[in-house]
């Protein structure tokens, strides 16, 4: 039952995101468009490139989708609305999201195309930049909660949300999450103007539909993680817990999409430089500040 509810919430959020994305791009609010687009993809011919690594080519979109769903499985929507409240939930989400890289590399290598391959390996470089900024802010969050259990992490924010308690960590995590979801301005692996779609370029038909869905789901999962780690999860007045979770998740996801619209794509070298020269020291400072706060403030 819980599984069904969470999956439905995930799918619904992905659909809403697709509607909002379409709205931002075309200025028309058409709730049925994602559905029709998806169906159209199913109807279209699914072209396979000339000499693909078939296993990777077929597996990559599915793996991406599975990873996004697995990440969502350990995030609570409400105190008891969680598929698996693991003892190491905050670590598990890292583990699941690490496979986004694997999926992108597979999608890049599989079709045997230059654009896709460059896109896939670009994402490896991007990982070197963002991965520390995912892990380190979560460390600080877990420090405050004194637990890796995600429900305990939300519980620790009942009086004060982490976005106030550790704003630095929130900013770093938000940026890193966008880089992880390879949304603009971090869409180096799929850069439309540079690689003509990159890892997406060779996918058509059903596979493209799965890939699109997987990418939207990934955004929802990351937004949900941001909500759980920094925005107090289900906490909020009046409305029921699950509603708060969904509202916050959608707000974060939409802001991720919005930020990308107003920024040009970042250079890979710049991303790497800023992440390592500024991001990681800042993340360490964040850990130290949180540690001091925990010790000083009872």
């Amino acid at each position: 039952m819980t599984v069904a509810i969470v999956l439905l919430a995930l799918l619904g959020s992905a659909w809403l995101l697709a509607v909002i994305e379409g709205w931002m791009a075309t200025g028309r609010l058409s709730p049925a468009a994602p559905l029709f687009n998806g169906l159209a993809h199913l109807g279209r011919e699914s072209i396979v490139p000339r000499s693909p690594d078939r296993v990777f080519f077929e597996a990559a979109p599915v793996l991406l989708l599975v990873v996004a769903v697995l990440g969502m499985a350990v995030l609570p929507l409400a105190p008891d609305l969680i598929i698996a409240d693991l003892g190491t939930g905050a670590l598990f989400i890292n583990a699941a999201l690490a496979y986004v890289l694997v999926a992108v590399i597979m999608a890049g290598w599989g079709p045997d195309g230059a654009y896709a391959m460059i896109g896939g390996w670009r994402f490896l470089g991007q990982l070197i930049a963002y991965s520390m900024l995912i892990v380190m802010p979560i460390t600080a969050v877990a420090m405050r909660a004194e637990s890796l259990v995600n429900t305990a992490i939300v519980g620790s924010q009942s009086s004060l949300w982490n976005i106030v308690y550790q704003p630095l960590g929130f900013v770093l995590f938000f940026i890193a999450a966008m880089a992880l979801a390879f949304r603009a301005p971090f869409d180096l692996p799929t850069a439309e103007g540079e690689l003509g779609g990159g890892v997406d370029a060779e996918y058509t038909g059903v596979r493209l539909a799965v890939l699109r869905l997987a990418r939207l789901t990934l955004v929802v999962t990351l937004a949900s993680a941001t909500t759980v780690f920094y925005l107090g999860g289900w906490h909020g007045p009046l409305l029921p817990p699950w509603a708060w979770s969904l509202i916050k998740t959608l707000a974060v996801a939409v802001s991720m999409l919005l930020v990308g619209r107003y920024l040009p794509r970042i250079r890979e070298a710049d991303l790497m430089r800023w992440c390592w020269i500024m991001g990681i020291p800042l993340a360490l400072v964040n850990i130290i500040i949180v540690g001091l706060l925990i010790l000083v403030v009872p």
Partner: protein
Amino acid sequence: MYAQAFFVAVFGLAAIGFGLVVFRTSSMVRSALALLFSQTAVGCMFLAMQTEFLGVLQIMMMATEMSIMAIFMVMFMMDPGGLGGMDMSHQKRFSIGAGVSAAVVAIAIALLSDWGPLADQVPDAEAQTRALGMELLGRSMMIFETAGITILTAMIAATAVAIPVQNLASKNDKESSE
């Protein structure tokens, strides 16, 4: 208990299967990703053996490590796509002998030893994580810190070795030190 044995065996077989694929496929990226899935299966075995923290950590670390492995494979192999069907191995018989005998010895020891009374219960994941943390920052702190320093040293050393040499003299030095 049977369930545990079942899952350990299934993930173990997956690990072995992918481990074999590593050296049997000619495509280098496949080889690296097969190793990744082998390591992931090992991580799942940890989970099946109720060692959640280590299992999740293994699964997480290996994704990145093996992807980096994959790009180095593509860089440094003659035939990364495996389309040429080159044979990239030597001293095959000796290697098989060594591998089999090592495995047989280890299996024999595993089978013949008296393992004594075994523990039925372990603490749950949360308690384990807490206890491991206490261990890391208590009795084993020295080891933990040493490991950290070693990683830092290795990072610096690897970078120093990998960046291009500036002049011929230092290049010769490095070659001889290798």
